[in-house]
């Protein structure tokens, strides 16, 4: 418990609030193409002391240091991948706002689509059975049903079904 409070105090001293003022003019590179690359990369890198902000959005001092470092690496001729690897070598995958695809994240990356496929499959399977069933089992609408449907339609279309 006390440790948690401590951490919070620590966090409070490190953060300058969730105010995003981000990239400052004096940090920017004179080469627009290189600067655009730097912006694009830094939008996908996490500010470590902020919470769920990219270093591009954050005005935390560490985020600024990392932005400057990133630009230095690019100027020195790093490719985008090399510049990112420079940071993951020091801070791990945690700096990546796009988690890497590896066995531990398969569920994350493919889970939603697997769900869609499985869900869709179940529906199709049941739908097939359902429509086959409907063909075979369901007689054309019963009189009662027809009347009800007509009422619903009238209700729906004209709103005249009121008592």
């Amino acid at each position: 418990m006390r440790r948690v409070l401590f951490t919070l105090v620590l966090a409070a001293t490190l953060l300058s609030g969730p105010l995003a003022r981000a990239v400052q003019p004096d940090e920017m590179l004179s080469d627009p193409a290189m600067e655009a690359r730097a912006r694009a990369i830094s939008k996908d890198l996490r500010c470590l002391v902020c919470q769920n902000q990219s270093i591009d959005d954050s005005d935390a001092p560490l985020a600024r240091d990392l932005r400057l470092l990133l630009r230095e690496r690019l100027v020195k001729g790093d490719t985008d991948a090399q510049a990112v690897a420079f940071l993951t070598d020091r801070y791990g995958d945690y700096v990546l706002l796009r988690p890497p695809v590896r066995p531990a994240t398969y569920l994350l990356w493919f889970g939603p689509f697997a769900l869609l496929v499985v869900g869709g499959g179940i529906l199709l399977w049941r739908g097939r059975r359902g429509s086959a069933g409907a063909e075979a089992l369901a007689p054309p609408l019963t009189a009662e049903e027809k009347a009800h449907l007509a009422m619903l339609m009238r209700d729906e279309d004209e709103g005249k079904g009121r008592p």
Partner: protein
Amino acid sequence: MRRLMFLIPLVLFLGLAGWFGVRLKQIDRGDTPDRLPSVMIDKPVPAFDLPPLVDGQPGVASAGLADGKVRLVNFWASWCAPCRSEHSILMRLAGQGVDIRGIDYKDKAADGQAILARDGNPYAAVARDESGRTAIDFGVYGVPETYVIDRQGRIRYRQVGPITPQDLQNRILPLINELSK
């Protein structure tokens, strides 16, 4: 069989709740989500050579950390409040003969010197990292952070945040003893 299908949501939910419970327990033990593990563990300290905080005294360099002695490297700053709270623990450790190298992170030299003059100097040597680049090479994301360096100059443990007496007893001192054998 069909009835069992209706149990699936409950089972999934209980799994989820159990996992929330595990996390809460871990957090209560101090493993909060903002606490990052270091990727530098078991790797040699990054190369650096920093100038001294006090002119005329030695600075701190990576070359001097692989000389067969177990050490602590402590990142701190005068503007960092939690650093003050761990200062007395560092002083006590220094008194027991532990070799602590200090790195004053993004600080004005005069402010850092003033703090050491006021509260005492636990460091065998203390250097300035004005740009914060050496800290980034270590993977520091906030001060204070403390690294245990083994005899071959490899990083063996990282403490994020101030060292508490429990951390000292349960983790840092046992590790130093083991590495010194």
